[in-house]
């Protein structure tokens, strides 16, 4: 019995230790972002005189003074928002069509779409650069930034699976009442698939907020950078000030954190059967 208890305590202690190890780097980021410049150089030893150091938001102010941060974060929001919004309709419409409606050559087409999932974006990066950046002259252009991501084979596949699992009753009832397929897709299927769609939107948001390779390729102006690329440049921008760099990092993280926390609750609350209950 005591052995069992011991085991439990051991597990708890290990778990908490792991948790601390996991969270420390992020805490360090926040801590450093609040430190005055001269204290950053003391590293961890600065903790010793933690109570005499004045933590401040000066580093955050410095970031705004040194680079056009509003610009950067605005572009990032626009980038992720556009992809998520366009993707929401484009992908779900396609998925719905493949789940419910007759399409000439549908099976072959869908197999093809599924096959596209395996092609990594890295393979497409160079031709996309030559096509969009060089031929269409979309360097440093918003269209060039989001176009490659408007449709996503994986999301189509994922949403179709979800649509297939939904009961057909509501749609059939609407069909009898002479509603068009577009109406049914928009006002019945789409709301029913909310959990799956929100999942797609969150995944898209996280992926594209952190997107690195393509924004790096398609921009060569410091005024046209997403937060990730901006950070990458900011952290080698002389003079190197770690406090400022960490402040930038914190600010580049907060939007993602917020949106995730907000939407996550949504996922838990919505339920696939809600539509039928009403």
């Amino acid at each position, binding site marked *: 019995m005591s052995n069992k208890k011991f085991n439990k305590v051991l597990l708890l202690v290990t778990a908490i230790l792991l948790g601390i190890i996991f969270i420390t780097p992020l805490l360090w980021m926040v801590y450093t972002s609040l430190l005055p410049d001269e204290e950053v150089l003391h590293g961890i030893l600065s903790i010793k005189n933690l109570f005499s150091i004045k933590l401040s938001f000066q580093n955050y102010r410095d970031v705004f003074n040194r680079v056009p941060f509003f610009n950067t974060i605005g572009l990032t929001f626009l980038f992720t928002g556009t992809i998520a919004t366009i993707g929401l309709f484009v992908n779900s419409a396609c998925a719905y*069509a493949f789940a*419910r409606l007759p399409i000439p050559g549908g099976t072959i087409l869908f197999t093809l*779409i599924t096959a596209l999932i*395996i092609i*990594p974006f890295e*393979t*497409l990066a160079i031709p996309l650069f030559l096509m969009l950046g060089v031929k269409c002259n979309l360097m440093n252009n918003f269209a060039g930034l989001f*176009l490659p991501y408007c449709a996503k084979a994986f999301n189509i596949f994922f949403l179709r699976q979800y649509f297939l699992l939904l009961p057909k009753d509501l749609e059939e009832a609407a069909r009898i009442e002479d509603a068009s397929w577009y109406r049914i897709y928009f006002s019945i299927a789409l709301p029913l698939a909310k959990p799956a769609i929100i999942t797609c939107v969150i995944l898209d948001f996280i992926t594209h907020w952190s997107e690195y390779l393509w924004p790096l390729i398609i921009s060569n102006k410091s005024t046209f950078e997403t937060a990730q690329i901006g950070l990458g440049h900011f952290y080698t921008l002389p003079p190197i000030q770690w406090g400022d760099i960490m402040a930038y990092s914190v600010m580049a*993280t907060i939007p*993602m954190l917020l949106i995730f926390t907000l939407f996550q609750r949504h996922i838990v609350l919505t339920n696939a059967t809600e539509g039928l209950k009403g």
Partner: protein
Amino acid sequence: MKQLNVRSFLDRNAGLILSIPALFILFLMVIVPFVMALVTSFTNLSVKSLLNPNHLQITGVSNYASLLTDRAFLTAIQNTFFFTVLVVPLQTGLALLFAVIVKGTALWQKVLKTSFFLPVITSMAVLSVVWTLLLNPSIGPINTILSLLSIEPQPFLTHKSQAMLCIITMSIWQGAGFQMMVFLAGMQAIPKQLYEAAAIEHSSPWQNFRYVTFPLLRNTTIFVILITTIFAFKLFIQPHLITQGGPQNATMTIILQLYNQAFVNGSYGKASAISILFFVIVLTVSLVQRNLLPKEIKS
């Protein structure tokens, strides 16, 4: 009357019309570039030949031939495999352990779950920068802690044999939370009765895991391993930001080579050959895994 015709036409072809935007974009943004990559890889397309088309030549397989004898590229492949071979099992194992620990509703479990997951929603670029500070040989906290324990300060990212290990550690730390979530979702699907039955037979937590949880998570595990492997192969942000592939190529990866060939050297033909080779590697690995994994896990 005419309106009705239009309506019925629209309704009859609803499937096509609803799917056409996505199909069109996929065609333009995936299929066309893919074919272009394939074609470009057989030419010497470069900045030079783009600015002066006279230099453009079809060079056959010479890009591939020179890559496969290029030691720098082979080093990149080797590093990428090394990274993958270490990250995939360690990360998956750790994630499974976490999932078992935080499966439950106690407050400490919720807090732990969040702290494991936080690195996932912090972007890789941010984390790379944060770890560069943590591992900084002179002002980084890790070296300070080491010196308090009277261990010699380590060069970490500036040393050939430590740099990749640092990147591996940080990548495992970053991604484990995501796999943990996938495992948790998989565990929710396991019927409670199975655990109840096990409880009647007084099985230990380990036995629970060994004979109930783990076997029933087989499909989840396969999925996690597959996804992690492909992600691992794409290793780019960390070396690009932290080490630029150095010191001495120790953290050079396939995608970093691709990036450097294309956007630093301006050799698009050669870079396209790398991207096609990369595709072949990813394809092969996922096919092999799909066929091999179930057997291994059964035994």
